């Protein structure tokens, strides 16, 4: 299964992923009309930074997803590709999902009073955040491949260690 992974060492903190995400979730999916849209479109991932590291934080579409388990209205569901998505009309705005998400990546649409989260850009071959990242800090790869690459690099450089 493919997942969006972050390589923090490549992140420059430019927030292009946030823009790409918001545009993809706008009406016309075009930057210039998205900027004009009112209310403005909402991003689903968030750049966070400390002094040492910066990276976008985004929905992991957890296999045992706390949000999905906690959703009392049947809004959240897992689609055929494994993505945790919403049936928007069922959201009652109880914010239980917001409370239980360990990553803090479910937010509130103040206009529609419903929860907003990453849908993995299920209509696209490549999620908008990944394709708008100029440095390759966001990648869409098979989980096994990602691990393999990490192991390979570990052996190659001998410098990269998991804490």
């Amino acid at each position, binding site marked *: 299964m493919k997942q969006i992974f972050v390589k923090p060492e490549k992140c420059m903190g*430019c927030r292009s992923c946030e*823009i790409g995400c918001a545009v993809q979730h706008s009406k016309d999916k075009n*930057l210039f009309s*998205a900027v004009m849209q009112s209310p403005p*479109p909402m991003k689903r991932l968030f750049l966070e930074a400390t002094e040492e590291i910066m990276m976008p934080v985004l929905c992991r579409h957890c296999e045992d997803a706390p949000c999905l388990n906690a959703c009392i209205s049947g809004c959240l569901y897992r689609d055929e590709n494994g993505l945790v998505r919403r049936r928007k009309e069922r959201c009652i705005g109880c914010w239980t999902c917001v409370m239980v998400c360990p990553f803090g990546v479910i937010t509130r649409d103040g206009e529609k009073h419903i929860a907003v989260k990453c849908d993995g850009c299920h209509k696209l071959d490549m999620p908008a955040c990944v*394709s708008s990242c100029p440095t390759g800090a966001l990648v869409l790869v098979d989980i096994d491949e990602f691990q393999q690459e990490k192991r390979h690099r570990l052996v190659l450089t001998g410098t990269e260690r998991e804490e």
Partner: protein
Amino acid sequence: MERSIDKATLSALESAEKAGVSTVWDRYAAQSPQCGFGETGLCCRHCLQGPCRISPFEDGPRTGVCGANADIMVSRGLSRAIAAGAASHGGHAKHMAHTLLKAAKGEAPDYPIRDENKLKAVAARIGVSVDGREINEIAADVAMKALEDFSEKETPLTWAATTVTKGRVDTFLKLGVVPTGIDSSIAESMHRTTYGVDSDPVNIILGAVKCALADYAACHIATDIADILFGTPSPVATRANLGVLNKNAVNIALHGHNPLLSDILVQVAGEKALNDSAKAAGASDGINVVGVCCTGNEIMMRHKIPLATSSVSQEAVILTGALDAMVVDYQCIMPSLAGIAECFHTKLITTMPIAKIPKAEHIEFHEPEAKECARKIIEAAIGAFGKRDPGRINIPDISSTAFAGFSVEAILSALSLLDSEDPLKPLIDNIVSGNIYGVCLFAGCNTVKVTQDANYLAMIRELARNNVLILATGCASGAFARHGFMTPEATEKYAGPGLKAVLTAIGQAAGLGGSLPLVLHMGSCVDNSRAADLAVAIADKLGVDLDKLPVVASAPEAVTEKAVAIGTWAVAAGLPTHLGVVPPVLGSKLVTEVLTSTAKDLFGGYFIVETDPLKAAETLISVIGERRKGLGLSV
């Protein structure tokens, strides 16, 4: 998206693929998607506490570190773009003025005054006395007046104040946007947009308008002096597109902007000794000079030099494998040329101290010994001819006839054949009757963001069908020239009945044996000043100001900061001005509103941003209709 609709460009791009050479289109693909903050104008690098950026989606911080909000960031960015545009045209114009002064003092013998009438006309306009004076004295005074326009004066710029309508002068005075120096306006823009100076977005934009008017003056100086030194253009027939390269000649492309280099090179390229030397090197047809970009326009109008291609496809000329030298001065010259030239035998020759490219050969051009420098450059090109790889030559057999060189003087002289007493009258009568519904000036560049030429051709078909008279400059004219729109045949094919009748009547009176071309080629991008002169003449004749005329402008494929400056002075001049690419301003609703709407209340002109060419043409036609209604003319 298709890269181009020009078959010659596409053929050259195939050669690029075969050779594994990347072009501007590949680099654009590699850069995409581009940064959304940059695209909306919401980043600022004006101080060392930055860079700062503001999300266009109202999330995250609403100000930069200093407190500048989106409106301030966007207006400052726009202002700096206009200042850079004005600096470019200013540099070009100052270069010309210095050379005119040297010529007048006898220090640049290769630059005689070729058009004394133009010199006297300019002198009279700017208040330099003419009667009983030597030509060189007049020329020196005109040059000094031009140079004075660069520093900060107590009075308005001569080249702005003496070339616009009284109504415009009043409007500019009222709004406090009268420039008193070209370089000082640029410096002022840089000052007011630096850390902690002007934080009122509307005030910043008005400052930018002042700078844009300085740009206008610079363009006008450049045009005037080019005419004085090299002759005022009159219509010539030539050809345009890559097919103008000649396999059996030493092909030299002149690329850039200033005729100070290109005109001299063309003069020298005709010399027998150099052509003999080319033949001796194996080029049976001698030397073949072609133009690229705006300097291509300059030598096209004055010397019938064919145009190889326009700015975005400049690399294509080298990709033919038959270009022996590309000689450049400044502006719009992609640094990528050096790498591409290296893949072929082509010699890239830089000539200006301010515009060098690593790996190019630098042969510095000095006006006092201009022809000698030009000969050296041509000899270098001849030297490269023998290194061609015949297996890699692919000159697309594509070129179109193009009639070029419609200066205002040339247009008036054609019109005077219909009415020698009052040459403008036939033009105005036809505008009044609706045979000419309105006038559209196409200006600007080609961009990788639009399929090359697609916007131009889609718009012109629509406008011409609706009897809109088309003027073109810069690479806009290049697009029309390469596609055969600067011909009487295009008039026959695309002009509406009223426009066709007018163009035919003038063409026949002028003894062309047919109609005028559908597009009147007015020159390079500085020659937008010619279009302004024509509009001013029409306005003065009608006794109305520019903001009432059924005249519009369009830059459907714009690229450069110079285009932003020109677009801004067109708006200040009162023209509704279309942009076919979105400028980096949408991050500020206020600035967007000022440019597209408030400007109309202030100047009469305003920006129309529309990326769909058909919708853009429709809008321009309806805008022309509104203006006609305002004048009480038929709609």
